[in-house]
């Protein structure tokens, strides 16, 4: 099936070349980092995780969101998702690949990465995260590939694949829960030490992932003859709406606990992020942008008349995605480190090489996504005239 990714329009190849260019810049920056060390980034003794780990965290959510298609389609027989469930699974593959790459570029000694396997350490959440992420990648590869191959042949998928499809549901929840546990079990990091961390991760995941999926569906419809379907996109819009409300609600709980209790350690990270602390406030404009985008998006999404207009839905989805990216793909990690263990403020901002490496990994993800979507779309275009399979 891979051959289908090798033929395409001029526009397709231009997009591929742009991605390859960004990847090239990322690879060159990574070689510099590999040679010099992680000192090329903006990270420091006080803020020892930065952009890489926050991108990883955000993308685990995007990957987990495939389950928002799998559950309605396979458990509730919601047929409208039949055509696009593959888009969710392929998005998961691209997102998990990015996750793994972000962990890799964050390592100080990347050549020793296999030590995680050679010296398995079950008490480390990172060990479990590596296990569940690779498992999820494997499950989605096998499910996506087998179902698409069956579709191409005009056959229903083999029965044994059902096992992996059902397995993918709890597994999707597990990847984001385990990722939340990386943070939520650390004594002394007030911002992260919260029982709702995993719940909030899942809520934000089920908003950001489907929001991206809606945008991808609209792009797919524009660049190909394959139409994901108005109703499917609208249903995804409802998922985004509910999940985004849940996310904002859970964030509100965090604010209440911190500020009603008035415990300084709990308040300080929020004060730093949203108002600035001791004259330091690099993230303040971003966090407010995130909040405003979230509120405007919710006002648009909750109103069915606006949501039903695809252009407006797309606009709201862009806002949801950016809002959650700022919140989780930046603020969440930095807020855990500021103020530091001595209640002092050291700020963090990514450097140019760090940004280029980050963009490079995103570009690799989008390259994988493009190739996989190209294959899926080519097969969907072929089978568009065929009757429903399931």
């Amino acid at each position, binding site marked *: 099936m891979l051959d289908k990714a090798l033929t395409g329009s001029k526009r397709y190849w231009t997009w591929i070349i742009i991605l390859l260019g960004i990847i090239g810049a990322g690879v060159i920056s990574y070689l510099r980092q590999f040679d010099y060390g992680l000192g090329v980034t903006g990270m420091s003794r006080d803020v020892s995780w930065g952009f890489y780990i926050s991108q990883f965290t955000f993308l685990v959510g995007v990957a987990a969101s495939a389950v928002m298609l799998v559950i309605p389609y396979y458990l509730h027989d919601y047929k409208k998702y039949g055509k696009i469930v593959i888009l969710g699974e392929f998005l998961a593959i691209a997102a998990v690949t990015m996750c793994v790459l972000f962990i890799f570029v964050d390592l*100080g000694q*990347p050549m020793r990465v296999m030590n*995680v396997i050679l010296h398995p350490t079950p008490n480390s959440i*990172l060990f479990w995260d590596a296990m569940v992420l690779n498992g999820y990648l494997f499950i989605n590869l096998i499910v996506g590939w087998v179902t698409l191959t069956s579709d191409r042949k005009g056959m229903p998928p083999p029965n044994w694949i059902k096992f992996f499809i059902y397995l993918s549901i709890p597994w999707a929840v597990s990847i984001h829960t385990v990722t939340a546990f990386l943070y939520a079990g650390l004594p002394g990091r007030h911002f992260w030490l919260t029982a709702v961390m995993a719940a909030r991760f899942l809520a934000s995941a089920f908003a950001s992932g489907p929001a991206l999926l809606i945008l991808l569906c609209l792009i797919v419809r524009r660049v190909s003859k394959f139409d994901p379907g108005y109703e499917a996109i609208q249903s995804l819009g409802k998922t985004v709406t509910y999940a985004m409300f849940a996310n904002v609600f859970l964030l509100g709980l965090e604010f209440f606990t911190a500020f009603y209790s008035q415990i300084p350690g709990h308040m300080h990270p929020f004060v730093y992020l949203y108002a600035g602390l001791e004259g330091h406030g690099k993230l303040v404009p971003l966090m407010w942008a995130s909040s405003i985008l979230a509120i405007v998006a919710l006002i648009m999404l909750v109103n069915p008349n606006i949501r039903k207009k695809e252009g407006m839905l797309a606009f709201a989805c862009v806002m949801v995605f950016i809002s959650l990216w700022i919140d989780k793909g930046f603020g969440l990690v930095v807020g855990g480190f500021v103020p530091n263990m*001595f209640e002092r403020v050291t700020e963090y901002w990514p450097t140019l090489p760090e940004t280029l490496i980050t963009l490079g990994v995103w570009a690799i993800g989008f390259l994988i996504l493009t190739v996989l979507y190209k294959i899926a779309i080519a097969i969907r275009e072929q089978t568009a005239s065929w009757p429903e399979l399931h």
Partner: protein
Amino acid sequence: MSINRREFLKLAGTSTLIGLTGISAVEEILKGNAEASVLPSPAALTAKRWAMVIDINKIGTKEEYEKITQACHSIHNVPDIGNKKDEVKWIWQEDYEHSFPGISDEFVPDHIKHKPFLLLCNHCAKPPCVRVCPTKATFKRPDGIVVMDYHRCIGCRFCMAACPYGARSFNWRDPRPFVKETNPEFPTRTKGVVEKCTFCSERLAKGLKPACVEASNGALIFGDLEDPNSEVRKVLSTKYTLRRKPEIGTGPSVYYVIGGNEHAG
């Protein structure tokens, strides 16, 4: 007595074989004596759980503080990179307020408020850094010391996120050009690994107390927390001490004598 050519060859062959295969070594291993080669030297200082008491009243001048840090950093090849972002430190100064956030009071005697405290790895009873390390590169020894295997560390920095005491440093760049005088007795580190205080486990093995203790003129007391007759226990039973963030249950092994004795002032 003379041996013929055939007998000579037999003898030579057998002894060569013994020499080559090292039968004596094999016998030693079978008898279980190989373990003996990693037993501590008789001179080594041992304990059930090592701990330190820092009496800040006994350290007066800034120079005395610097001498202690210098004693540690020089023998452990800790680089002096000269910027805060890349900083590596094992034992350093911090003021009262920031050493004890959450429990530091606003109204305390000036000599405490402005006195620097010495901070270092707390060698916790339940170290979060050990719990989170995905490769067992950082681990707790039976004597309570939390140490690092610099060759196994993958540089994920999970331990730095987990340490509630900010005791860990990462080598953001090659540290070797910033080590003024390399001590060949202790390994230098490479870029991309985490490091921290080891309670001088390498000195204890030779029967020496930690370098900071030796350089402190009695202000730093080192001993076995589980031995009621040890020096640290004697201090702990006579003077009121503080530990950093005891409420989070990590069980830090570094105690601070704050004040209220004849050395105050």
